[in-house]
């Protein structure tokens, strides 16, 4: 059974970026019900993210929540933007590498003078890079 991986970037008030990656086909997929469930799980983990942010001084917060057989891992950027990954038990180092690469792309994106901090990310280039990184690290 394929376990779709959900990657969401959350700003102060709203999600800024969402990508659902199907580990088997490497593209978007999944039926509506499981997608909505996944979003719910991710967003309910936000409070736990806040809590565990105070326990460590590194950006990578590891696994903050476990629901059924899925885990939520989080990475907190210097500007308090949360990268959240819902996955079915990937190794911590793999997820850390993925987050670091996406962080690099995010920093390049934020250097674009036309991108305003904490606004939804619409750049196609960014989305393609994130998907490529996900395929490389998480599939």
């Amino acid at each position: 059974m394929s376990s779709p991986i959900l990657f969401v970037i959350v700003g102060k008030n709203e999600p800024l970026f969402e990508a659902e990656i199907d580990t088997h086909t490497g593209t978007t997929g999944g039926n509506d019900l499981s997608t909505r469930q996944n979003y719910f799980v991710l967003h309910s983990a936000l409070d736990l993210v806040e809590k565990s942010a105070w326990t460590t001084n590194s950006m990578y917060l590891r696994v903050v929540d476990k629901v059924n057989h899925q885990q939520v891992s989080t990475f907190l950027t210097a500007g308090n933007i949360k990268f959240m990954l819902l996955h079915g038990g990937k190794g911590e180092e793999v997820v850390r590498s993925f987050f670091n690469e996406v962080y690099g792309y995010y920093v390049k994106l934020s250097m674009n003078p036309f991108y305003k901090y904490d606004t939804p990310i619409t750049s196609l280039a960014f989305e393609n890079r994130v998907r490529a990184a996900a395929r490389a690290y998480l599939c």
Partner: protein
Amino acid sequence: MSSKSQAAQAGQALWAKMPKANAELFALTYGSLVTELVRDYEDPIEVNAQLDRIGYSIGVRCVDEFLSKADVAGMGLTTQCQNLRDTAEVVAKMGFKMFLGIQAEVGAFSQDQRCFSIYLQDNPLSTFVELPEDDPSGGEDLRRLKYSNLYCGVIRGALEQVNLKVDCNIVRDTLKGDELNEIRVELKEVLADGAGDDYKEE
């Protein structure tokens, strides 16, 4: 041709003497300038005109600095530019090299030798920049924005101080998907020297 490599070498030497600034700071400063202009004027055509005006002020000052530094170093300007081709070489190989550190090429001279193009492979002003996608709600169409229009103003201002009235346009832009940046320069007229009618001797 010897004059071409002379200009290139002279440009290299001039660049070595200039004080340097951080490239990212430079690009980010220009980026904020452009986004502020976009916020103020909203219409991209108006923003292009403003960038051209800002470039014009810069060019007027740049040309003096260029001529004084190049003269003092005693390089490449022992002979004056004889025709527009020489001027183009000097602007691209020495001017762009000295102030920005980039290699610019000239080409596409027109039949009557009154137009030419300057090609820039990489543009230090547009590092990290990505033009935003079309706004479907019909907001300003930033595809019409000429992000590097400052260069056009600089060339226009600089050449006007040496009595060459030119028109500059950006015809190809890497931000819009082309492989390189191309600035088309057209000579409109050669101005007469002199301080004007008010100062004519009696």
